[in-house]
């Protein structure tokens, strides 16, 4: 009885919050029209996520310490940008990873396997892509995950929809993109990423290349395992673990990313950036993608580079292609995957993801006028 009451209380609280937000937006819309609603979202992405007030605060602090004259020089601006962006990203990282890990504790791969096993056809691909975004997945688990899915009767196409969407689309990426580009682009990115995952998985299966999984993967039978249920305290602990572990793993990428972002922001002339990555250049998406593929960085490290490029007038599509190619494919995860799938399938997988990223780049560049 007690547990039921608690569950009800949480549902009620969530519903109330949701209703308040919806009513708030409706009132804003009625009073101020579409502009007002845009303003609310703009506020969320600029001040809450983008923390522009923090930039002002840091600017003021440095001005009083080093003098406004210095702060007006490129070096002064670079220092301010460096401190502001590093603090902002680390704060966002901690907050986001914590919340997202908490949510993800409800979707362990074992549960995903059970859910996916029940779907068939294109619905299964969609489910696979969606679950890929909320299931915590480390590339070292590639083999057991593959084997578990396969023995549960999940087709290779659905498994690959999961594998494609997993690194590419997640709640963290969504929030981060909203902080840099605003919600419309962030939402579009998620939708397009999921579609890419679904189509990619379907192509892999329909073309038959999905069969090129290594023998031992399809051989064994796997049980449905029931992991002990996590209590709220367990989940909070898990969220904290993941937050600290991610911070520890990712902080060098953040510093490097912010450093590059600061360099682009303050030292590299706009026309240099435009020459290589300008929107009007047909090759910009290709450059962004092929530079990004061999690199790996955590998505938090790509944010400052994305912000700086955006400020220098690089197209949204080009920037998205860069971010996606950097985060979606990494050498360690390719190595782990190659242990479970044969080279032909691995290269098909990479080719599909890269092609999809390039197409997405062109689409978003063409739609630039819609977003800006």
């Amino acid at each position, binding site marked *: 009885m007690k547990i039921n009451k608690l569950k009800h209380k949480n549902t009620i609280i969530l519903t109330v919050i949701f209703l308040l937000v919806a009513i708030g937006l409706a009132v804003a819309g009625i009073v101020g029209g579409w502009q007002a609603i845009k303003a609310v979202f703009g506020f969320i992405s600029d001040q809450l996520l983008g923390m522009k007030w923090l930039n002002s605060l840091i600017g003021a602090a440095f001005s009083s310490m080093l003098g406004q004259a210095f702060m007006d020089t490129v070096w002064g601006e670079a220092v301010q940008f460096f401190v502001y962006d590093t603090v902002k990203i680390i704060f966002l990282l901690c907050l986001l990873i914590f919340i997202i890990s908490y949510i993800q504790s409800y979707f*362990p*791969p*074992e549960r995903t*396997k059970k859910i996916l096993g029940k779907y068939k056809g294109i619905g299964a691909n969609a489910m696979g892509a969606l679950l890929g975004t909320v299931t*915590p997945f*480390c590339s*070292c*688990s590639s*083999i*057991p*995950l593959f*084997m*578990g899915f396969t*023995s549960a009767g999940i087709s290779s196409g659905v498994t690959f929809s999961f594998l494609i969407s997993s690194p590419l689309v997640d709640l963290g990426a969504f929030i981060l993109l909203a902080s840099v580009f605003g919600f419309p682009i962030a939402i579009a990115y998620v939708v397009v990423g999921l579609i890419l995952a679904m189509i990619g998985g379907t192509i892999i299966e329909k073309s038959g290349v999905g069969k090129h999984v290594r023998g*031992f993967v399809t051989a*064994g*039978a*796997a*049980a*449905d*395992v*029931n*992991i*002990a249920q996590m209590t709220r305290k367990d989940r909070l*602990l*898990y969220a904290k*673990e993941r937050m600290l*572990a991610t911070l520890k793993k990712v902080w060098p990428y953040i510093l490097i990313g912010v450093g590059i972002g600061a360099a682009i922001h303050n030292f590299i002339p706009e026309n240099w950036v435009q020459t290589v990555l300008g929107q009007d250049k047909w090759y910009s998406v290709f450059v962004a993608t092929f530079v990004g593929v061999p690199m790996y960085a955590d998505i938090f490290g790509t944010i400052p580079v994305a912000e700086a490029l955006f400020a220098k007038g690089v197209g949204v599509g080009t920037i998205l292609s860069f971010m996606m190619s950097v985060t979606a494919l990494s050498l360690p995860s390719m190595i782990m995957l190659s242990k479970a799938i044969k080279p032909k399938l691995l290269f098909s997988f990479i080719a599909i993801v890269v092609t999809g990223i390039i197409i997405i780049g062109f689409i978003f560049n063409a739609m630039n006028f819609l977003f800006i």
Partner: protein
Amino acid sequence: MKIIVYGTGCKKCKSLYESVLKTVKNNAINAEVVYETNLRTIIEKGIMQMPALEVDGQIKSAGRVLKEKDLLLLLS
């Protein structure tokens, strides 16, 4: 008590195994600790995240490297 740590040899898996050994030793827990790396065995159990911790036949956690404090809670 029988404790099995399932892992495939990556750093995280070894960390959990060492963490379990330390916890058992520091708290004088009467337990047999096994480190299982056979992939076939792991798969047949249905485990999908490494490392996984099994205590007396029940999978208590998967995909987490637990510290001594948290392990104590799980082992009690």
